[in-house]
């Protein structure tokens, strides 16, 4: 079976080494890594926003040559920034990426993300968490094949973290699309099918969540370890003596 996403040697000079990545249809992939490890760079390169080499294809269609109208069906990118400058109503922000008016689809997402009460308010005046939900709805609106979500769980309260994961799971199951989600809370990776650990601009480990959480690579990368069911800073081993 051909994978949904096929990326070959995608690279971003100075931030992401040439990387190959295949993602199967219907899978949820978590992207973790220390600050500055290249999570956002990988997502941006996959979304063909910026890359210095390589290519990425969704359902065997090269992203770089897809027309704007078609691209919104292939992929959706949610940036980590929740900033909105213009006073556009939340309902209309959700519909922004759609190629035509689809009021039923927008209504469906307003319900799913419990945004009905906020629908007519200017989105730039909502709280950060509310804006995060509006922007997530915007990313889902075109029912793309591949969801690239940068820090999708940030700025959300515990209910919305769980609810977002549930919504993503339902979406991925229902439409056989795939999602790649970068996150900082490594305990959340258990909700995913597969976890990519990024370190210094390359994929350092690619493991199922349970294995990832106990892996040496994770401990090594984040400089933390698990003991008595809690994460703690890994003690530095012995004083470093110069030879």
């Amino acid at each position, binding site marked *: 079976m051909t994978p949904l996403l096929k990326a070959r040697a995608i690279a971003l000079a100075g931030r992401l080494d040439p990387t190959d990545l295949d993602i199967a249809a219907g899978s949820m992939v978590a992207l973790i890594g220390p600050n500055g490890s290249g999570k956002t760079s990988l997502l941006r390169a996959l979304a063909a926003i910026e890359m210095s080499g390589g290519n990425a294809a969704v359902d065997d269609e090269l992203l770089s040559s897809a*027309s*704007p109208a078609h*691209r*919104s069906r292939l992929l959706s*990118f949610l940036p980590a920034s929740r900033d*909105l400058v213009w*006073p556009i109503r939340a309902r*209309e922000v959700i519909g*922004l990426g759609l190629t035509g008016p689809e009021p039923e689809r927008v209504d469906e997402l307003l319900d799913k993300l419990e945004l009905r009460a906020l629908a007519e308010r*200017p989105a730039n005046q909502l709280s950060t968490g509310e804006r995060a939900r509006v922007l997530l709805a915007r990313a889902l609106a075109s029912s793309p094949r591949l969801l690239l979500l940068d820090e999708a769980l940030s700025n959300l309260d515990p209910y919305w973290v769980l609810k977002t994961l549930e919504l993503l799971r339902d979406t991925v199951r229902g439409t056989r699309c795939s999602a790649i989600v970068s996150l900082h809370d490594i305990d959340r990776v258990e909700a995913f099918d597969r976890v990519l650990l990024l370190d210094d601009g390359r994929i350092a480990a690619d493991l199922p969540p349970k294995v990832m959480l106990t892996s040496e690579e994770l401990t090594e990368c984040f400089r933390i370890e698990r003991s008595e069911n809690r994460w703690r800073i890994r003690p530095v081993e012995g004083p470093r003596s110069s030879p």
Partner: protein
Amino acid sequence: MTRPFVLLSAGLLLLMVLHLLLPLGPLLEVRRTDSRLAALLLTELRLPRTLLAAGYGAVLGMTGAAMQAMFANPLASPDTTGSSSGAALGAVLGAYWFGIVDPLALAAFGAGGAGLALLGLILLAGRRSDTATLLLAGVAIALAAGAATSLLLALAPSPFAFYDSFEWLMGSFVDRSLPQAAAALIPAGLACALLITRARALDLMALGDDVAASLGYPPRRLGREVVALSAIAVGACVSVCGAIGFVGLIAPYAARRISGGHPGRALLPAAAIGAILLVLADLAVRFAPAGRAIPVGILTTVVGTPLFVWLLVGMRHRMLER
């Protein structure tokens, strides 16, 4: 959005007819003695003035809206980005140093100056900068261009350069010919028509550069297009009528009330509102008392400054609330 836009267009047409015919007295008087002269008066003197007032206003409104969308900043406009000043510098250089008389060639000089000013602004402040940086960089460029313009005028081979550039550069539609109006409005109209085709991309920029790029609208290319097209439109108009302030700032602001906040969809209503504002301003100038001619650019500045301050104060409040 269609209804308010249709109303705006109808209002604009009505105002343009009024602008063309008022004051009616002198026109009727001439007609009584010589109807051919009256027709000439209408087509050679009043028509270019009406077309320039409406066309330049539309250019200011639309390029202001496009710049605000591109810089993601409601305070960007042809004057606050220094592009009007740059255009004036280009036109002065062409007229007094290269001795250019042909209005179309002069328009090209104006466009060049405006384009350089906008590029300078992007180099200084970046394309998505905070309000303070954008305004400071814009002021710096406007000041530099203004100083250079004064210097070029002072050192110009013609000793009358300063004197006869006054009315030109202050922004005025008086005594412009039809060929001059054509030289300003044909390139500007083409540039604006192309700008409108970028409206959807500018709307998507509301979601940020990366989302626009992921949907196949690379913001850098869009930025270059907006800079080039705005420079052509503003430069051509400034080279004929001089710099006119604040219309390019206020019209987009009002237009976004019609477009539901969408920056790209505000392009057309901003053009209509800009045209209405400038036709109104020129009507007001024409009926100014004491027979003294006030350049229309001075009127828009006098009316626009308090509005600008009001906008700034409003923005500060919103930032403090965050």
